[in-house]
């Protein structure tokens, strides 16, 4: 009930937005287009789930976009190894996800054991992963991948785009984790009052590190999907994604000070921004103007959220 209420403000804004675009464009409210919106938001929304975990602990992860690119080039390059596809494919996925976990482990360790602020840690990792992606590929994209790989991000299952299915699974799992497990409860407690959480016997450092690992793994999954969508490993993929992701989380009502927020909100936040981009495209609004509009809507959404809380 409380979660519903917390998400209501943004849900309302979303309904208004959908109504406006439905009125202005006959192509907007169609099954094809709505599935298209879902596909378009899937990749950032998956990362946004990880980001929600991190922001709930009053942290931030700026490295997600670069990590997506690094994971993308590493995973795709492994597909080109001289191996049979049924070995190369799982190996590439596993390597990508492990790389994401490693990135999260490094970030979490630096934040908790060495007490460097998350902003600085992940800012540094952001440039490190981006740099390594370029070093690893010598600046060239990884091309000519097995055809099956492209299916992962571009195919459909039961008519639904695969990335959207992954997104839904991730959201449902995250919802269960946050509201029905000890881990989830500890995340809220740490974000709400880290010292009280520590004195309640919670292993704050361990939990926070795990949260960064979750974010890293989800970014890696997203990076693999993105590479598949582009059918190539691009070292400059995912530039500025971290900001889109943070915007979605904040618009979804999660507090940057930690302890308050839901993945339901993050889903609606991702959808609000995704619908906006899609609608503006349908209305042939130029990309320069779109940027301005998106920024204004982010501000409005957050204002609405604050106003609701008063």
């Amino acid at each position, binding site marked *: 009930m*409380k979660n519903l209420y917390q998400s209501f403000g943004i849900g309302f804004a979303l309904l208004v937005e959908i109504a406006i675009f439905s009125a202005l464009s006959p192509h907007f409210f169609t099954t094809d287009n709505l599935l298209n919106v879902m596909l378009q938001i899937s990749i950032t929304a998956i990362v946004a789930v990880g980001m929600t975990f991190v922001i709930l602990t009053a942290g931030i992860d700026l490295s997600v976009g670069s990590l997506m690119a690094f994971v993308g080039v590493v995973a795709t390059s492994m597909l080109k190894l001289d191996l049979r596809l049924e070995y190369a494919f799982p190996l590439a996925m596993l390597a990508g996800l492990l790389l994401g976990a490693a990135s999260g482990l490094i970030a979490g360790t630096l934040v908790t054991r060495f007490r460097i602020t998350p902003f600085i840690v992940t800012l540094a990792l952001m440039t490190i992963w981006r740099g390594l992606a370029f070093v690893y590929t010598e600046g060239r994209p990884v091309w000519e991948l097995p055809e099956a790989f492209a299916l992962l991000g571009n195919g459909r299952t039961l008519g639904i785009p695969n990335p959207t299915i992954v997104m839904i699974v991730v959201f449902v799992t995250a919802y269960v984790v946050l509201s*029905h*497990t*000890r*881990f989830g*409860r*500890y995340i*809220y*407690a740490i974000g*709400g*009052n880290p*010292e*009280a*959480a*520590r*004195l*309640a*016997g*919670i*292993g704050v450092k361990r939990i926070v590190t795990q949260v960064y690992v979750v974010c890293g793994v989800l970014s890696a999954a997203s990076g693999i999907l993105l590479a598949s969508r582009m059918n190539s490993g691009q070292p400059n993929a995912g530039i500025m994604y971290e900001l889109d992701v943070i915007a979605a989380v904040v618009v979804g009502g999660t507090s940057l000070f930690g*302890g*308050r927020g839901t993945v339901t909100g993050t889903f609606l936040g991702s959808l609000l921004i995704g619908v906006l981009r899609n609608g503006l495209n349908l209305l042939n609004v130029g990309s320069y103007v779109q940027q301005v509009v998106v920024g204004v809507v982010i501000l409005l959404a957050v204002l609405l959220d604050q106003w609701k809380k008063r």
Partner: protein
Amino acid sequence: MKRDILLHMRSMSKHYPGVQALDSVDFDLFAGEIHALVGENGAGKSTLTKILAGAEQSDSGTIEVSGRTIAIREPADARRLGIGIIYQEFKLVPELSVAENIFLGDERRFLRHGFVRFSLMHAEASKVLSRLGETIDPVLPVRKLSVSQRQIVEIAKALSNHVRILAMDEPTASLTDREVENLFAVMRNLKTDGVGIIYISHRIEEIFRIADRITVLRDGKLIHSCPVAEADSEMLVKWMVGREADREAHQWSPKGIAPSQRREILRIENLTSDRVHGISFGLDRGEILGLAGLTGSGRTELVRLIFGAERRSSGRIVVDGREVSVRSPGDAIKAGIGLLTEDRNLDGLVLQMSILENITLSSLSDVAFGPFVNGSKERRAASELVRRLRIKTRSVETPVETLSGGNRQKVVLGRWLMTQCNILIFDEPTAGIDIAVKREIHALIRGLASEGRGIIVISSELPELLQLCDRIAVLCDGIVAGILTREEATQERLMKLATSYA
């Protein structure tokens, strides 16, 4: 009475919810006088100072400064009237220089063409400091200064404002003996300059050395006011403590467990950190042990060490005859030790979380199936505690931030009861809690002891300790100054031990 009356506060009253903090108190101050204001915690000293500082408004009463009735509505009014307050915690900016701190907010004096002329500021700062007999380099950042030097900077800050009335709240609490001597020299200088000083201290011996007059407050009432020559320390303690309180203290609660059945549940051996030194004591099942001592005596540090919230440099913790390794609060809880912290809002509760979530936070594994929290089991356990502790709420889902202080304290207590910890440490369990809930909490603590738990209670209110405890250990400057049984303990004796090294 030939000297000028600088300040006259007449029949000051102040009521807070649940307490009469001041009950028509008169207080006056002459120029060139040091007037000590003494009393136990909660006697009304700080309320009086806060009113003088403009941080609080009195409900009734008048304030005269130099014979004129004035109103102090906000801190700026106090500053204009030449009233300076030096609080126990310093209000300095560590990264700014000594001079910048002294003239913080007053830089306009040194402006030339829109820029601050630091050479002028430093010269002026040196002048103020030398008036205090100090040679601190005004260019140094404050973070590089010792505690006593910071104190001097605070005083210089007040003086730069042409202060005529200076209130000092426990200025010697964190000073070494030599630094105290320094401070006293400075205070005597100020006296000769005609500044009137209100001196608040728990250290009785210091009061007799430095003060000209003494005013004693107790429970918000003026108890006694006289020149220092007409009092001695025995009389002073008696005024502070009060006879009635003493008698009340002898109404002991019956012990829950017969001494023959008592077994030691906790033993602390030689516990040492940078704030406490070589502390040893034992605690029996069913026993309530009090920890008395002044602010800064190391009581809170000691219990935080026992609970693993801070690192100890040496010492052993023995639970039920077996040494336990306590390196984190998690370890302590596993060993059966729980701590209810002094400031439940700061580090006890997660305020935006519900009563339910706060109660089960330390024992989620008891209501979980693998990683999953069993919602109905959790709710049953929490509801049971809400009932048992009589927490006033409509639902266990209510966020803790909407509860009153007493109910919040019960939520913290609920959490520890749920952990089944057999050793519970209460740091100021009834601070800021009204009298009715206070009695309830006392009854709960006694009940816990009679169930066979070992209890440690820290309190700044001696009557509270005398009512609750079987034994009282008194800390002073980080060491145990003495442990008194309930038969031996009186407020006078406790006070004496607490101030024994001061």
